[in-house]
């Protein structure tokens, strides 16, 4: 290349760098408008999370084929980028300043080999990617002009790079040529065809073309989907560090009560109401579609598609909203209310997202705004009114809370002050006749195992977890403060609950209210009792059972083994797994308060799930959550099934207990 090439190139590079920096600035400034600075608590956890996810691609690889594609492209491109930078440093800096090169000797040979190999890796990835987007056509994978541009550009950069290398090797014939094995083979091919001289004449042009294309590609990062290479590692760094089952806490009611000042903005109405890191997360979406493909609300044909929701928020953030400072109202504009209400908070989306976007966080923040406005339709109003007036979501009398236990000789905490286990029955277990059966079964089991347990009886009040999910944060916190006092009053150490929602809230959300309880779900407790031999059970054979993993027990809290252990302990049972099981479990549709109001669905979530179970031709559809039980029973009725086959694992065990 001519003498001043390097200088010109750097000048041009600076131009592109400016474009790049401006693009980043323009895109990123909206994050900061009106939001508090990002948090960096638990810094080592954050760094680890970023390294594991962004660099080691942990979540991307959950889907094997697309994960592989991305790994190939990503690793190849990174290596080449670093390699090219080293070359530039070597030639234009090190050599100039120190009058020697560092890319020398054996190191250099392996360097060349490495780069060529990874060029192939990247190309393989690109080819597979093109295949996936044209021939294979994955579900819910939008292919936009951005995708075409990126894939084509990278491919052309690589191809021209190899071509240039081949030409150089053919002309210069350096001794180490075979180490750049791809270029070397290509050079030999060109020589065989006698094309070297012609190509050498266009070498300069090719060089500039390649350089400009590469610079343009980098400069285009903040203007295209490529921006995720910056945002996704950062997102993994800045996403809140919280237990999975804990929603964000927009205010501390205790503090507000003490200060007497309730003038707090709650919820997200406009983009600028989201925190800095939430806005960053919207901008990290790569339109991979994995969240939407897992979402039960999408499968049911509601308006909710998690990916599209995040993209809408991102677009609102970046486009017109930039001009009005991001203050335009989102809901009723780009976002339809019904999208927000259709979410069951099952966490399949967050679980799957390779860049760690928390869709539920954003949805709940928007729900909080709607609740603050107060214009809710009947089902949600009734729910909140019932919680306010009757301390349970059914609106049934507080005085009836212990009715299910009549005649069972169940002791309250007043009768038995030195209880070991507080059996938290929960609202469903107390009031819903279907789930009262489960409560009775649990009592039978506890008594058979001689567990020293007590219930709160008529002092038990809803923990209003559902209020938090629907967006009425104040009511939830009020209940938490009350219950924490109640637990302290009775010196509660260990809580046993049959409801995964209660379980999750006590375990993961209550520590923020100043109490650290040991919380155990009935599936775990029963499994322990069986394992330790405290329960004598008959065995039953010849049954085919499948277990439906409740979202709040499985995906949220990682409890998959205990309920299965309980089922297996029933006897020689054939345990079949649905395809969507364990952390891929398909929601029953009750979560996110959906149980309490109507969501317009083309095909109901619970019906989809029940049909999935039916396909396995099982005798029993085992559950471990009162709401899953209720929803699946409902589905059975909707489908006209004679017998639903739905049984809680406690019921299955209680049936087999030998009274000693």
């Amino acid at each position, binding site marked *: 290349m001519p003498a001043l090439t390097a200088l010109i190139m750097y000048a041009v590079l600076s131009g592109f760098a400016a474009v790049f920096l401006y693009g980043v600035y323009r895109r990123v400034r909206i994050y900061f408008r009106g939001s508090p600075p990002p948090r960096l608590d638990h810094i080592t956890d954050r760094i680890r999370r970023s390294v594991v996810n962004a660099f080691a691609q942990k979540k991307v690889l959950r889907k094997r084929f697309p994960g592989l594609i991305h790994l190939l492209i990503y690793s190849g491109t990174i290596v080449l980028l670093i390699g090219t930078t080293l070359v530039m440093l070597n030639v234009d800096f090190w050599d100039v300043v120190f009058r020697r090169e560092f890319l020398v000797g054996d190191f250099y040979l392996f360097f060349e080999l490495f780069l060529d190999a990874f060029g192939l890796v990247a190309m393989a990835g690109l080819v597979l990617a093109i295949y996936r987007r044209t021939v294979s056509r994955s579900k819910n994978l939008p292919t936009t002009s951005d995708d075409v541009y990126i894939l084509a550009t990278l491919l052309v950069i690589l191809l021209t790079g190899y071509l240039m290398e081949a030409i150089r090797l053919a002309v210069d014939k350096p001794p180490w040529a075979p180490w750049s094995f791809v270029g070397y083979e290509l050079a030999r091919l060109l020589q065989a065809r006698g094309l070297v001289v012609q190509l050498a004449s266009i070498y300069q042009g090719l060089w500039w073309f390649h350089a400009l294309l590469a610079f343009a590609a980098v400069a285009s990062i903040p203007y295209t989907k490529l921006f995720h290479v910056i945002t996704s590692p950062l997102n993994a760094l800045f996403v809140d560090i919280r237990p999975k089952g804990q929603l964000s806490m927009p205010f501390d009611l205790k503090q507000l009560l003490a200060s007497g000042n309730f003038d707090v903005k709650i919820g997200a109405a406009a983009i600028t109401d989201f925190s800095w890191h939430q806005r960053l997360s919207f901008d990290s979406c790569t339109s991979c579609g994995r969240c939407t493909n897992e979402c039960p609300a999408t499968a049911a044909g509601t308006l909710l598609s998690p990916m599209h929701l995040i993209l809408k928020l991102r677009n609102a953030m970046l486009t017109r909203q930039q001009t009005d400072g991001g203050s335009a109202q989102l809901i009723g504009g780009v976002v339809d209310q019904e999208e927000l209400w259709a979410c069951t908070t099952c966490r399949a989306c967050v679980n799957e997202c390779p860049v760690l976007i928390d869709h539920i966080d954003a949805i709940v923040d928007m729900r909080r705004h709607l609740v603050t406005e107060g214009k809710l339709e009947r089902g949600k109003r009734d729910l909140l009114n019932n919680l306010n007036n009757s301390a349970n979501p059914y609106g049934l009398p507080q005085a009836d809370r212990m009715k299910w236990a009549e005649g069972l000789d169940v002791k309250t905490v007043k009768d038995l002050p030195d209880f070991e286990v507080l059996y938290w029955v929960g609202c469903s277990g107390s*009031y819903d*006749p279907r789930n009262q059966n489960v409560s009775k079964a649990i009592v039978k089991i506890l008594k058979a195992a001689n567990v020293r347990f007590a219930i709160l009886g008529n002092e038990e009040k809803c923990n209003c977890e559902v209020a938090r999910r629907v967006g009425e944060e104040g009511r939830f916190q009020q209940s938490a403060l009350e219950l924490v006092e109640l637990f302290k009053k009775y010196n509660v150490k260990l809580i046993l609950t049959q409801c995964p929602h209660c379980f999750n809230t006590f375990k993961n959300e209550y520590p923020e209210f100043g109490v650290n309880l040991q919380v155990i779900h009935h599936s775990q407790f029963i499994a322990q009792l069986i394992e330790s031999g405290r329960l004598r059970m008959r065995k039953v054979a010849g049954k085919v059972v499948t277990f439906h993993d409740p979202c709040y027990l499985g995906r949220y809290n990682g409890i998959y083994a205990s309920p299965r252990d309980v089922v297996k302990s029933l006897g020689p049972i054939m345990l079949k797994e649905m395809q969507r099981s364990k952390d891929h479990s398909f929601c029953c549709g009750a979560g996110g308060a959906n149980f309490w109001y109507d969501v317009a669905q083309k095909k109901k979530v619970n019906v989809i799930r029940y049909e999935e179970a039916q396909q396995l031709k099982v005798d029993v559809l085992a559950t471990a959550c009162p709401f899953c039980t209720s929803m699946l029973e409902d589905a059975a009725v909707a489908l006209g099934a004679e017998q639903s086959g739905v049984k809680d694992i406690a019921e299955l065990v209680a049936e087999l207990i030998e009274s000693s």
Partner: protein
Amino acid sequence: MSEEHKGVWVFSDLPPLTLELLGKGRTLAEELGTELTVVLTGPNQESERCIQHGADKVISLEDPLLNAFQVDTYTDALSELINQHKPDVLLIGATRNGLEFAPRLAERIKTGCVTEATRLALDAEKKYVLMDRVAWGGNIVETQISRAKPQIATIPKGLFSALPADPSRKGEIIKLQPKIKPPSTKLLETKPKTTKGVKLADAQVIVSFGRGVKRKEDISIIENFAHVLNAAIGCSRPIAEDLSWLPEEQYIGLSGQKVSPKLYFAFGISGQIQHLTGIRSSRIIVAINNDPKAPIFEFSDYGLVADLYEAIPALTDAIKQLAKN
């Protein structure tokens, strides 16, 4: 003061109800040994008919300001009449008009009024009318008396029965012209209500059904039964949501309508909690289900373990027999 008050008066803006009030009024008047008077307004006054159905006296008001019911004009008219004639007892028909009129009238003449009495009886000394009414969600029946006279009660349609017409009865018709000020409000428009069906939220009797009804065509059986009782029709969620046999406004339950009728029939409804929360304010719940273990029976006042396809004809017959007797 009570010595001066004599006579039982009745008034209603609904002629058939007036006749029913005359029926009870006749009994009271006889027990008290006084006259029964009816106040009639508007054109087409059926004075003779009222006399035949028990009135001793008809006070006929012909002022055109009284042609259509309006609370100001009627309060002016009746309060003047009452101040002049001092009746002992006044029964007013508990139509919506009656319910807004009676208390205003009572306040103008400073007397007590019992809303929607369910029973009227005289006390032992025949000084007071003991007026019963239901309160506190149907849990309590209060027996009330008015400390001042006239003792006013508003009476709903169907509580009492009109006496059979007696053409031989004679009575007096008096035309009076109390001073009436023009009304304080102006009636711009009236629109007759087109929807025959009673809104579930306000319905007094509801006939509801669930999955026990096997075919969509069978809904007509439910409808006929509802017609016999003049009831509104409701259903459980699967009927509206999953089968779409009825519109969503008719499903009663957790995320649907909440109802508080006097009488609720549940045909072929198992009694899941979602449905029960919608009906718990009903005064009397009757469940018909062929499964004796259906949860709804725990929640009902009366339960019939039967196939609804057999129960409905049997109930219809029994009710029709009742009307005959």
